[in-house]
């Protein structure tokens, strides 16, 4: 027996839940299938999210889901010099935040189905018409005219649907993280750059209380470096900060650091969030982007649903809106990431010493020219590395 819905979402992370909530509010019958028995676990990230959200999103960022509120990010050069970028954010408890998002989707009328592993697509007359899944030892078929991949990194079903979303080592950072107690923290996110710390990645300290933090590191996948060895070295080299530190939890995972995939929509199929590489190439944040994508996609789907047309043509406005907005911004930050890969520690020290938070905000917005010109005036030898930003 098959179960019938208007849309099936694979993956109950922030993107999948937010899509389901938005589509259900518009009257659609949506099911969210997740392979795990408990949502939000295992945690694979630093748990940081910006909090300057439009109130219409109604995100469950509250005293229970937020571990600590943040008011700035500190970028730290190899020589220890730093600059501060103001910005409101939070470090959340993913296990709580993800569950609250799923509860919000359920309250809006969506069906949440944990412990349901999607194994393949169902096709009918050559068209995608649902998915096959295993639930509590039983094979179940879920039928819908639209399947949405919110699968995260493991985007196997999207690949089976013919979407070009394969992750590569070059565009992946391999991450290792400890949640540690007895680490003194301010309400700021700390990002440590430098080739010695991590080749093409960075180390981070994200506070979850005044003496608890996620301490992690990401390293470029193609380097083959062991992220645990790099993280242990990072901690060892800071004995003052970590002398009383105790590991409370061990986390890890791979994250996409390329820009978003070009094609996000096919006939009867859409991809949102990390499954479509919607992760910031500079800071590796993906929760906010997945939620934004989920909202745009659901609004487009609701219109297509009224006309009962789930063709690529009917859904493509999501892809276009994404690439005109967040997608374009990500492409600029990918350029920035690629330029940073070519910098020596000495160059990084020089750049950090000659930059402030305003300059950094300009770079993150893709407004490279004035900052790059200022740096080149003082150190012309940077030209070969940063010319792609000119």
């Amino acid at each position, binding site marked *: 027996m098959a179960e019938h819905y208007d849309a099936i979402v694979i993956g109950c992370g922030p993107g999948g839940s937010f899509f389901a909530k938005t589509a259900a509010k518009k009257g659609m019958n949506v099911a969210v299938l997740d392979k795990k028995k408990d949502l939000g676990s*295992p945690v*694979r990230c630093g748990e940081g999210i910006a909090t300057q959200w439009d109130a219409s999103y109604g995100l469950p960022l509250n005293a229970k889901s937020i571990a600590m509120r943040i008011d700035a990010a500190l970028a730290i050069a190899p020589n220890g010099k730093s600059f501060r970028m103001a910005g409101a954010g939070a470090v959340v408890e993913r296990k709580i935040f993800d569950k609250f998002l799923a509860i919000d989707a359920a309250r809006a009328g969506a069906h949440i189905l944990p412990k349901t592993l999607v194994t393949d697509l169902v096709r009918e007359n050559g068209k995608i018409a649902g998915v096959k899944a295993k639930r509590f030892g039983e094979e179940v078929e879920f039928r819908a005219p639209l399947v949405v991949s919110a699968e995260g990194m493991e985007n*196997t079903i999207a690949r089976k649907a013919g979407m070009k979303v394969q992750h590569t080592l070059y565009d992946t950072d*391999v991450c*290792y993280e400890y949640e540690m107690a007895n680490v003194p923290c301010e309400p700021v996110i700390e990002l440590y750059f430098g080739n010695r710390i991590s080749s093409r990645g960075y180390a981070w300290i994200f506070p979850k209380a005044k003496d608890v933090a996620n301490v992690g590191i990401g390293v470029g*996948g193609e380097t*083959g470096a062991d992220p645990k060895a790099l993280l242990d070295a990072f901690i060892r080299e800071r004995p003052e900060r970590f002398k009383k530190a105790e590991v409370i939890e061990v986390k*890890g*995972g791979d994250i996409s650091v390329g820009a978003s995939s070009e094609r996000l929509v096919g006939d009867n199929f859409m991809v949102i969030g990390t499954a479509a590489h919607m992760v910031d190439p500079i800071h590796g944040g993906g929760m906010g982007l997945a939620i934004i994508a989920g909202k745009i996609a659901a609004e487009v789907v609701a219109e297509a649903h009224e006309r009962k047309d789930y063709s690529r043509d009917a859904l493509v406005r999501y892809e276009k809106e994404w690439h005109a907005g967040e997608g374009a911004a990500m492409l600029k930050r990918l350029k920035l990431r690629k330029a940073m890969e070519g910098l020596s520690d000495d160059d990084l020290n020089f750049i950090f010493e000659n930059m402030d938070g305003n300059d950094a905000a300009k770079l993150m917005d893709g407004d490279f020219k004035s900052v790059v010109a200022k740096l080149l005036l003082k150190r012309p030898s940077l030209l070969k590395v940063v010319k792609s930003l000119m």
Partner: protein
Amino acid sequence: MTHRVDKSKCFYCGGCVSLCPVMALVLVETNVVCDESKCTKCGICVKGCPARAIKVE
């Protein structure tokens, strides 16, 4: 030649599944299952494993 996952190291994060170019890997709760008939022993999963839990030999 086989694809082995050391369960005492594995985080079941699914990183290997996401990087496998031939979709030979599936993560089922805490088990990474490899379809040996698809696996080409390319070693990408070995490099991409944050926990260094995979050996292809």
